[in-house]
């Protein structure tokens, strides 16, 4: 029989205001095995932990139940506390009487009753707990960063500077990401390329960084400290070791009709291409779908003009398998598709563009060489309208429920830059709210209004109608002046919502990292662990976790790097001891458990067993506890109940069921 101590936390008034904590402690003493019960202001505090430790020593406690907040919050705190008092850390169970009780119920009597039942279930479970010992697993001192935008680059640089090897896997032919498409950055207006390119170069030159561009993560197995990842290096058709990056092939390539991804389809690129001038690596790829050689077998011009002999039409996709201790996801974002927003005429008029397209138009290396002009006729606009919140803050299925966060600021930036460079152009911004939290952000927005004369109108646009004269009729409203506004514009710029890169769902599944309904990766704790995924060893960097601007992305990237470094710095990791275990006397050797094990942790061996004096060789399931992650799939598929899960055993769960239904 266990000697159990029950400790009921007030959590200030968080619990005590709705749950009669004294009553819970009092009722605990009536439970089997309970020899000590008390309540205290803050169990997680130093003093609270000390009380548990004292009670263990004074009353020879063998099991502890803490009635407090969620075990996801403080289970570890209490485990460590009892360990210091000489008790096995797995002899602790937490009854969640805050998140699952005091915070959701108002009636004191009802909440107290429930808290007592939750306490009983935890006592029933701890009565059956057994001391568990964690195993050890090694840590591969290498990190993988998925995504080569500013988030991925920054994370990789920080990890590499700490002395660890890092690989960056980037899907497109060059690193750089969305930031490389941006012309100027707010709130300082410095040129995006000027601050990004040095970082790209540094990453490329860093002895600890290996960059795989035009590559994708194909498969992930293993677990924290010991992931095995297959990376598909897509055939570039250009030998990276030979290419000098002279660019002649791109000039001579006769197939020049593919919309440029980098310029958001505003102009075309050749079939053999580098996405942009500062691309890293500065080695082109052949787009096999567009290449005449691949389509018809004829042409081969690039090969003829290449002095280095780098063109290799026979190159095949290559699978690189590498081991990693930590994985950082930095998959970034894209703009949402606007096909559901007919009222803004995006697909009807070339002069209705997204903000990212405007970035390319304003960029000196862009399709218009940096001249502000209409994409339909090349004429300079006189009247420009910006529409905010297109697809953001929507509760219908056309857009996203969240605020995209960056649009207010980049719209102010665009408006300001246009007014600065083309003072004769009128700029009108239709907004719902202008959101500018951030250092020097509101000052920036006010400058657009006060110094540059940008016309901000509180109100939304209902419809944009292309006119026969080539102009765009914008029908909006000014909610302050209470009047409808009908305005002819030359260009309309839509601040389209941003969404996580669609590939992230596939990646999250491979990593078993959780993801929300908007495809943003979930953090382990919204406030306290914002750069870690709940899946151990997976870290989050940049917009894949939620909308953010460049400064925020860079700081989060650094934070993710630190977390990854913290992991890589360890030589060994303690493994979760809550693993499956097969009772050799009950095991039939039927293989059903091995069939459902996602980790290949179950093998079979012919073993001599002594079944109550009867000796025989039997085929017995063996669990490799280093591989087992403790999901429990095997325990249910086992018909004889031989397979059980330590820490969540059949008897423990049934005891909880019984206690709740009592």
């Amino acid at each position, binding site marked *: 029989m266990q000697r159990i101590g029950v400790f009921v936390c007030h959590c200030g008034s968080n619990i005590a205001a709705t749950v009669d904590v004294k009553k819970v402690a009092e009722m605990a003493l009536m439970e089997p095995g309970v020899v000590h019960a008390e309540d205290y202001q803050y169990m997680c505090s130093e003093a609270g932990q000390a009380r548990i430790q004292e009670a263990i020593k004074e009353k020879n406690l063998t099991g502890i139940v803490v009635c407090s907040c969620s075990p996801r919050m403080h289970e570890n705190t209490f485990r460590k506390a009892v360990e210091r008092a000489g008790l096995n850390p797995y002899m602790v169970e937490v009854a969640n009487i805050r998140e699952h009780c005091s915070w959701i119920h108002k009636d004191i009597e009802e909440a107290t009753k429930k808290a007592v039942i939750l306490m009983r279930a935890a006592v029933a479970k701890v009565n059956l707990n057994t001391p568990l010992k964690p195993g050890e697993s090694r840590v591969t001192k290498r990190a993988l960063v998925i995504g080569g935008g500013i988030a991925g680059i920054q994370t990789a640089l920080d990890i590499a500077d700490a002395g660890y090897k890092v690989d960056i896997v980037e899907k497109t032919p060059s690193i750089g990401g969305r930031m490389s498409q941006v012309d100027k950055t707010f709130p300082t207006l410095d040129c995006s390329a000027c601050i990004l390119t040095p970082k790209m170069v540094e990453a490329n030159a860093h002895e600890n960084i290996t960059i795989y561009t035009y590559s994708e993560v194909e498969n992930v197995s293993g677990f924290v400290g010991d992931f095995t990842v297959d990376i598909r290096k897509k055939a570039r058709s250009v030998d990276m070791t030979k290419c000098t990056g002279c660019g002649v092939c791109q000039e001579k390539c006769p197939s020049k009709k593919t919309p440029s991804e980098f310029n958001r389809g505003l102009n075309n690129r050749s079939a053999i291409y580098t996405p942009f001038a500062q691309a890293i690596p500065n080695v082109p790829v052949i787009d096999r779908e567009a290449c005449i050689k691949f389509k018809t077998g004829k042409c081969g011009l690039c090969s003829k003009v290449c002095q280095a002999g780098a063109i290799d039409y026979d190159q095949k996709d290559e699978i690189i398998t590498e081991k990693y201790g930590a994985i950082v996801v930095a998959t970034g974002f894209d703009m949402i598709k606007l096909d559901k927003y007919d009222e803004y005429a995006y697909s009807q008029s070339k002069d209705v563009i997204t903000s990212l397209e405007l970035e390319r138009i304003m960029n000196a290396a862009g399709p218009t060489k940096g001249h502000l002009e209409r994409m339909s006729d090349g004429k300079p606009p006189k009247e420009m309208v910006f529409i905010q919140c297109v697809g953001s803050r929507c509760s219908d299925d056309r857009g996203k429920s969240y605020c995209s966060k960056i649009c207010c600021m980049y719209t102010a930036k665009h408006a300001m830059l246009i007014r600065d460079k083309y003072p004769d152009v009128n700029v009108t911004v239709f907004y719902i709210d202008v959101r500018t939290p951030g250092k020097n952000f509101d000052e920036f927005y006010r400058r657009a209004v006060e110094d540059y004369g940008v016309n901000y109108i509180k109100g939304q646009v*209902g419809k944009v109608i292309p006119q026969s004269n080539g102009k765009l009729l914008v029908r909006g409203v000014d909610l302050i002046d209470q009047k409808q506004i009908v305005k002819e514009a030359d260009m309309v710029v839509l601040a389209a919502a941003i969404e996580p890169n669609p590939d992230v769902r596939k990646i999250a599944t491979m990593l078993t990292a959780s993801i929300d309904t908007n495809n943003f990766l979930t953090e382990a704790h919204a406030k306290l662990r914002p750069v870690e995924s709940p899946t151990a060893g997976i870290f989050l960097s940049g917009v894949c976790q939620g909308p953010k601007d460049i400064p925020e992305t860079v700081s989060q990237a650094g934070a993710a790097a630190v977390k990854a470094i913290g992991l890589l710095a360890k030589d060994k990791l303690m493994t979760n001891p809550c693993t499956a275990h097969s009772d050799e006397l009950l095991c039939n050797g039927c293989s059903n458990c091995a069939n459902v094990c996602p980790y290949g942790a179950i093998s079979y061996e012919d073993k001599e067993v002594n079944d109550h004096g009867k000796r025989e060789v039997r085929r017995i399931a063996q669990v490799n506890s280093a591989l087992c992650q403790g999901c429990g799939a095997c325990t249910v598929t086992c018909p004889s109940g031989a397979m059980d899960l330590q820490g969540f055993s059949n008897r423990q769960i049934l005891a909880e069921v019984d206690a709740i239904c009592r």
Partner: protein
Amino acid sequence: MSTEKKQAEQIKEISGVNPLKCMKCGKCSASCPSYNEMDIKPHQFVSYVQNEDIESLVNSKSLWKCLSCFACVERCPRDVKPGKLIDAARQIVVRQKGQDYLLADEIPELLDPDVPQQLLVSAFRRYRR
């Protein structure tokens, strides 16, 4: 419950709209073809219901100026759909039995020759219900 409160609840029930979801973007008013004729603007319908000022709403010109074109319903990003609110407010008036809000004889006078007959008939059928 006061009559106004009851009516406000009734409007929410008939329309199926939760006015608290409105973020006051004004897209409804921007879309409305009858905006200039209205005394209470489409985006204000929401706050009138929220503030339970149904008296003003049912006595407004807007009630009968709304064409039920549903542009606002179509485009509302927050699922608030002011067109449905005003439609519900109309229902409230229609349901007040015995109270003549508009006599059939008064209609020709109000007629705009540009309004298609079909629209008139269908609207008449709709609001006479």
